[in-house]
């Protein structure tokens, strides 16, 4: 397997003697300022809370316990299930799933459409879809809030046309949060699907058509299976950030739409905070994300064997 020097090898060992030095900075920076902090956070989740924020270095399972059980303030009452936090977690998962489905319904046709444009216009379409992503997420969320609030332009327009009689209560609802999440992460669904469809060989569709398959059957039975990796990647890229999102629920939602992100943020604000609890909630969120990513990685490697 003598690789010729003209064979286009691009992974090589030309710098291998110094690779240790080259990789050291990234190892140090990420190791010290991310890996260690996450481990420290794990430790904190097992400590006792200090009343004005911070921790007492005493082992305690109180933080995790607090999620599920309500132990009452006094005495040895048997623990009752505390539903509040469980609800928050379940709601977050449902919201994230909802956002993913919404992104898929709109994102897939969009990605497909762009990928089937002629080469010169394709880049422009793609550019148009990605530009909004580059606008600050905060600004995007604020603009969405501005749009759908009670006396906002959307309601004004609908009132003016006469579709509705009174302004729609859009803000501070689950729907608003859904919309916000969908709006935040839509490009993440479009891009991987676009990449997959762009690589798809349409001769397969032509062959199927030649063999009497109707168009939508072709889409379902031929295109989708081939494009599946892109779809899965897109779903993961929307689901994971949605799960831990903070801005959309905070700005567009209210007390009734509390999600994990807001729950965690609350624990570190001022004097009402409970650091170990916040750390525990973060650990649980991180674990959920890692589980999803692990499944994805395993599905990937199984695909390749």
């Amino acid at each position, binding site marked *: 397997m*003598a690789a*010729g*020097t003209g064979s*286009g090898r691009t992974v090589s060992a030309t710098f291998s003697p110094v690779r240790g030095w080259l990789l050291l900075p990234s190892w140090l920076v990420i190791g010290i300022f991310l890996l260690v902090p996450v481990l420290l956070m794990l430790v904190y989740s097992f400590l006792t809370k200090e009343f004005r924020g911070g921790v007492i270095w005493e082992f305690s399972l109180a933080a995790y316990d607090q999620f599920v059980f309500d132990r009452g303030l006094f005495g040895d009452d048997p623990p009752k299930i505390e539903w509040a936090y469980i609800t928050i977690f379940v709601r977050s998962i449902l919201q994230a799933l909802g956002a993913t489905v919404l992104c898929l319904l709109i994102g897939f046709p969009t990605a497909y459409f762009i990928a089937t444009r002629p080469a010169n216009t394709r880049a422009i379409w793609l550019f148009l879809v990605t530009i909004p992503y580059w606008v600050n997420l905060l600004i995007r969320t604020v603009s969405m809030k501005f749009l759908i609030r009670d006396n906002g332009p959307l309601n004004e327009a609908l009132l003016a046309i006469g579709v509705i009689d009174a302004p729609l209560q859009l803000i501070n609802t689950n729907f608003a949060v859904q919309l916000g999440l969908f709006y935040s992460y839509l490009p993440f669904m479009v891009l991987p699907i676009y990449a997959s469809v762009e690589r798809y060989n349409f001769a397969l569709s032509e062959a199927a058509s030649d063999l009497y398959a109707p168009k939508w059957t072709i889409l379902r039975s031929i295109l989708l299976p081939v494009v599946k990796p892109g779809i899965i990647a897109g779903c993961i890229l929307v689901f994971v950030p949605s799960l831990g999102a903070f801005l959309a629920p905070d700005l567009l939602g209210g007390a009734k739409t509390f999600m994990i992100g807001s729950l965690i943020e609350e624990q570190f604000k001022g004097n009402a905070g409970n650091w170990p609890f916040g750390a525990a909630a973060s650990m649980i969120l991180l674990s959920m994300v890692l589980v999803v990513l692990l499944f994805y990685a395993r599905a990937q490697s199984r695909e390749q064997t």
Partner: protein
Amino acid sequence: MTSAIALNGVRKDFGTFTALSNVSFDIKDNEFFTLLGPSGCGKTTLLRLIAGFEDTTAGTIHLYGEEIENLPPNKRPVNTVFQNYALFPHMNVAENIGFALKMLGWTKTDITLRVAEMVEMVQLGQFVHRKPSQLSGGQQQRVALARAMAPKPKVLLLDEPLSALDLKLRQEMRTELKRLQRETGITFIFVTHDQEEALSMSDRIAVMSSGAVQQIGSPNQIYENPANRFVADFIGETNLIASRVDTADGMNVVCSLADGEVLTALANSPLGPGTTGVVSIRPESLTVTKTAPKGESLRGTLGDAVYLGTDTQYTVQLAKELTLKVRMQNQFIASQALAKGDPVFVSIADGAARFLVD
């Protein structure tokens, strides 16, 4: 005179795959030496070992008596012309050619002089300020050559430098390269899979296959006296007929073929009776006649004829599975009126048959 390159027991493994096994030979000073073989035979690997881009798994490499296999490429006075030229795209022709000189710390004046010399040598005067993307394939090739020769290397390595050029250009460059080697006196080590190139340009050729050297010799030696079946088959065209030695007289052997017919052939070394092998006869050393010729001949039936301009190539069926390819110049065929299906005699030119041990 010390050899330009002395290889001793060189071995290269890539994981469990052995690309080169126990290669040992010398390349002489001022020689145009070619490594020839099919893809995967190890010729490029060997070149890269000499250049320094790979480490030897075992064995030593000496350059004019100095051990170099532990030196990195930028410490070896050996330069390479890459197959895809690898011209630095952001530098113009002059900067590319002068690169090594800059690295070696030559003064600006010396660099300018030498670059001008090299540009003159490859005749690219008007293109000096162009970037590689503005040059044709042939021009890029000449820049690559000039760049590698500018620092006056002791040995020049060329990795299939002509493979990307079209036929006419390739033929022109063959003459060019030969001329350059003669004029500069630098030892050239040339890698190719094209045997015509190897035969036409080289002083000596090393034929390689599957990581081992099959034979080293001059083009004439390789062609006329192949050492084994692989070389006979790889170089030019040949007929290979299974046979067994009946009697031997030094290197001359009398051997019998599968169908019982008998031939005389020349072997590479003294052999004993009963040795099995193949007889190799080049198609141009065979003649087809309708009437029995003087001397030994084989009988068969004439098959298809392929007209090739100057020659015609015939297929002659000898016995059940034995067919021979015969090539004859058309000026000698006209008189005979040969037709497919005719019974014919095939005679062998004196001394043309070679017996090769399995």
